[in-house]
């Protein structure tokens, strides 16, 4: 039999379920310290450096043609990579969760490979595969197709590095939802594309969007893999992170941090969208 807590016993219960005050203070203090040192302080420094030579220099640095080209290249890459990886992620998650086939477990593990491999190595793989000194690369060169040191290479490297995001978001979601609804639709006479459009896609849409946000964030910020395949040609193969790095190594700190502030804005934007979506996601997952 459970007893109602008496007034005397109530404080004892309270003490037991929460940690002692000093522990709380230490934990919260440590967390705050970490946040200040590793997030707020650097963020502040980025803007302080960016504006160190005044507003006008800031605007000039981000309006300069090479900077604009870098922004354009980064956004182009995101615009190609995110839809392709969304498509790939949905296909992979669908295959892994709705069918049983040989090598399914292996495929699921391989999905994480791009996260496990260092981005520099990921870039090098493509240089070794389609670089101008390889047979395939030189054949492509003869056809007038350039991959390494040009936009396709950057897109492919980013594609590789970001491909797990959508699939990893969808697989647990689709596993939890099971096949019941699809099977019900099947017995009701629906065809494959009708089932996908009317049942599966609406059920996974928030997870899919969430995965795409993460994928965008990483595509914008990717440095290592892109650095290897880009060749750093100003105004042609420089993405925002690469441009920031070049300016920095030229000791042009103010310009470098001005361009970096664009990255910060894009990052804050994606985090904002992510938070909004998460709220939606939670609200919607009550509809079970």
């Amino acid at each position, binding site marked *: 039999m459970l007893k109602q807590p008496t007034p005397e016993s109530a404080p004892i219960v309270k003490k037991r379920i929460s940690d002692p005050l000093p522990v709380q203070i230490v934990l919260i203090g440590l967390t705050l310290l970490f946040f200040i040192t590793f997030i707020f302080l650097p963020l502040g420094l980025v803007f302080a450096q960016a504006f160190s030579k005044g507003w006008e220099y800031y605007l000039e640095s981000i309006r300069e043609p090479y900077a604009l080209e870098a922004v354009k290249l980064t956004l182009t890459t995101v615009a190609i990579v995110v839809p392709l990886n969304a498509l790939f992620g949905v296909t992979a998650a669908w295959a892994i969760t709705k069918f049983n086939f040989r090598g399914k477990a292996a495929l699921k593990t391989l999905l994480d490979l791009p996260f496990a491999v260092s981005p520099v190595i990921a870039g090098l793989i493509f240089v070794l595969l389609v670089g101008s000194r390889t047979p395939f690369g030189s054949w492509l060169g003869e056809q007038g197709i350039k991959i390494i040191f040009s936009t396709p290479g950057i897109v492919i490297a980013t594609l590789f590095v970001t491909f797990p995001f959508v699939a990893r978001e969808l697989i647990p979601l689709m596993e939890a939802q099971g096949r*019941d*609804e699809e*099977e*019900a*639709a*099947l*017995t*009701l*006479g*629906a*065809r494959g594309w*009708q089932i996908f459009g*009317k*049942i599966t896609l*609406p*059920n996974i849409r928030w997870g899919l969007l969430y995965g795409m946000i993460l994928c965008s964030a990483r595509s914008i910020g990717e440095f290592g893999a892109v650095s290897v395949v880009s060749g750093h040609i100003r105004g042609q193969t420089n993405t925002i992170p690469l441009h920031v790095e070049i300016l920095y190594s030229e000791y042009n700190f103010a310009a470098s941090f001005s361009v970096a502030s664009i990255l910060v804005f894009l990052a804050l934007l994606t985090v904002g969208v992510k938070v909004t979506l998460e709220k939606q996601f939670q609200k919607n997952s*009550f*509809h*079970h």
Partner: protein
Amino acid sequence: MGIELQNITKKFTGYTALDNISLNVASGELVALLGPSGCGKTTLLRIIAGLELPDSGKIILENKDTTNLPPRKKNVGFVFQHYALFRRLTVFENVAFGLKVLPMRERPSRSAIQERVEHLLKLVQMDWAIKRYPSQLSGGQRQRVALARALAVNPKVLLLDEPFSALDAKVRQELRRWLRKLHDEIHVTSIFVTHDQEEALELADRIVVINKGRIEQLGTPQEVYDHPVNAFVYNFLGNVNVFHGRIKEGKVTLGTHHLDAPDELKNTEERPSQAFVRPHEIGISRIRSNETDLAGTIQEVRLMGGQIGLNLECEGFEHPIEAEIPRDLYINLQLSRGEKVFVSLNRVKVFTGDYAI
């Protein structure tokens, strides 16, 4: 004939789910597939619906061979154990789904769909919830909507996979009676899967008892309950007391006790046998009315609603015997724990197979 299954076999890696099953279901009949979990009954249902393919055998629905047709061409209504309603669609959209996915030339007009959905929701007494989402309904209500959804496409055959097992006892019983009534109204050939013998006995026109991928017995609830063909069926259809003994010279040994063997086993040579008695077929009295009555002591008393359950320790028996007696009798005989009573075993069923419980 509504459903004809011919020699259906299905093997999964490591075990045989269905072993050469043949079964006929007449048009308009309501048949229960009854068996323990893992016996293959759900696999059989999914094969009829086309959600799984058999390794061999034929499925004939309304005289048409549908063995290799995809589910959408089978015209079968399927009701899932966990409802499987479309969570993003309203009750209306759920029921209308099967009509809206029809090819353009077969699809009814908007108003015809509206009318049909309203009619079906009235039939399952869910018309008040037409604009709700599945998450706003209780389990029993969801299952009714799922049934309306399955009926919307005018299926030739209705298949129900443990339709009530996710519901609580009270709702389960209510919905069970309601489904029987509904079936009497619409007469669609139906098969439902269950592991609950009470449900099968109450609801079905005929029961198919399945064990380890084979049909053990097929018959009306009365036949199956009163004349189980083997120990498995007898045991599966309700609580039983099992007595392991030997059969010898026309007598069955139960503990230190001897009973006349049933006629068909009168002349067998000596061998192990099992005797079964249902708890409610055990007689309890204060006086010895028959020389075969056993003397026993009440060890435990359990209240079971209208019935009283007794555990009886009887001379010469290793395990206590379970009995169920009406409450009135319990009160009239002024029984309680520790009292001495006489126990008579009625309708003892003897099997000699090597079936083990």
